[in-house]
């Protein structure tokens, strides 16, 4: 479905701070994949995700969607088929707007925004029905501003906003990084439910090895801007932390020594 060919992303090109942030020779995301992306800080995980969403433009190489070259399209264009949940629940939504206004904005993703009222009785009923199963009592707080909600509540709403309209791929960018363990668990269960129900293609960036192993049918590990390990569905079923570290050692000839990656059990 999404094909990346000879991609290079260089930050600060032709400056003293030039940095090769991403280098991918040939990579494909298939329809129905739930791909977890793991790697230490600076490995290129977020850049990889930003490349697919169109937020970051490649310096060389091409991006294809179902065989069509979309290398020159930007994030706004790609939002028609690409939805995203941001890492920070405070900056990933519209804090000064109400819950129902946030949902209304998400409802119009991929369609023309006209002069019809953004909020209608039908839309409010839909938002109510979406929020009720969360059992957070948010369905009765539709007119409250987003900034009044907790991080977990906002992230749950972000997830519902991202998945409210059909899409080809859902990008999850370390979406539980700012949450406590209980809320992380809740958000991940909600994610699994939504992904299974809608049969979504997902790309989830995480720092947590536990999450990377527990979720999805495919795992990739990134290191210094390159994809160094790509574990397919069959191999991933029996994959453990130790096996993953062995794979890293085999590939790189060194120990995986990033504390944040090894210690993160969320």
């Amino acid at each position, binding site marked *: 479905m999404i094909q990346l060919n000879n991609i290079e992303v260089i930050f600060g090109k032709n400056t003293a701070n030039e940095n090769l942030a991403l280098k991918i020779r040939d990579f494909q995301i298939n329809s129905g994949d739930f791909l977890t992306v793991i790697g230490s800080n600076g490995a290129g995980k977020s850049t990889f995700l930003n490349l697919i969403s169109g937020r970051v433009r490649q310096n060389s190489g091409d991006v294809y969607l179902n065989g069509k070259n979309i290398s020159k399209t930007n994030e706004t264009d790609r*939002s028609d088929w690409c939805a995203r949940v*941001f890492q920070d629940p405070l900056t990933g*939504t519209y*804090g000064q707007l109400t819950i129902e206004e946030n949902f209304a*904005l998400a409802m*119009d993703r991929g369609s023309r*925004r006209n002069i019809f009222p953004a909020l209608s009785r039908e839309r409010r009923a839909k938002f109510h029905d979406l929020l009720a199963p969360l059992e957070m009592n948010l369905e009765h707080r539709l007119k409250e501003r987003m900034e009044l909600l907790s991080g977990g509540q906002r992230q749950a709403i972000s997830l519902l906003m991202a998945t409210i309209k059909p899409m080809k791929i859902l990008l999850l960018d370390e979406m539980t990084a700012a949450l406590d363990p209980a809320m992380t668990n809740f958000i991940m269960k909600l994610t699994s439910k939504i992904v299974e129900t809608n049969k979504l293609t997902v790309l989830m960036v995480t720092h947590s090895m536990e999450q990377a192993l527990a979720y999805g049918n495919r795992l990739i590990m990134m290191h210094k801007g390159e994809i160094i390990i790509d574990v397919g569905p069959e191999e991933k079923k029996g994959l453990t932390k130790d096996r993953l570290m062995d794979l890293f050692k085999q590939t790189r000839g060194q120990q995986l020594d990033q504390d944040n990656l090894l210690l993160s059990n969320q």
Partner: protein
Amino acid sequence: MSLYSILGAIQLGFVYGLVAIAVLLSFRMINFPDLSVDGSFPLGAAVCATMILGGWDPWMAIFCAMLAGAGAGAITAFLSENVKILDLLSGILTMTALYSVNIRIMGRPNQSLLGKETIVTQAAERFSISPMAAKLSIAIAICVTMALLVGIFLASRFGLSLRAVGTNANVSPAYGISKKSRIYTGLSVSNCIAALAGAVFCQLYGFADVSMGVGTIVIGLAAVILGEAFVRSWAPFAAVFACVLGAIIYRFTISIALEGDVFGLTTSDLNLISSIVVTAAFLFTKYSRQKNLTVKVK
């Protein structure tokens, strides 16, 4: 205050209510500190006066003034979004350029509409009312109509996306909202309304002057901040009508300060009073919000 002063304050309050709506759109809704309003207000007046003196219909003159204002807004947006000049500076550049443009349009620094047919003379004749009543009715009718239209616009799907860019521009592309197009639209509509205010002002008071825009932005901001002090809502209609209310309160405050003869103030102290009113309203809003956020522990 005499009845004449009260009616005068209400009338001018509604005219500056239009400026307040313009400032609300740029400063609050799209979060763009646009100073070009100081230039588009006299631009509206200049276009309107020149067209009326050229024998055009006064309503057509208002329409063309609005178009000119929208163009000025689009230029500010171009400087900011395409040329990538700092937003504040983009507005200042347009405002500065408009000073010369306005003199070019009028052919001189000011124009008088004495004895010419305006919307005031038309309304007075058609409804057989005094010019004073006609002026007040026109100011109220145009301001309320524009407030309703802007309220409807902001509550629409497109309007909501405009407010979204002002709230969090970083996340907007992920929802398919282009910041650039919203800045263009927001600034064009904002300056269009500021030019409408200038055109209405010109016809109500019978003149256009190149320096009539000085301090317009402060009046608009004062109205927005005063309105927010009384009506604390981010909802489109409430926010729009709050700033119109703010403009009227502002005009009353100024009238009382100048006419009361308590502090020995004269008309030349207008800008000083304006700044003091804005600062006071700002402090009032700030401290009342802090008070609301404070949790009382027994």
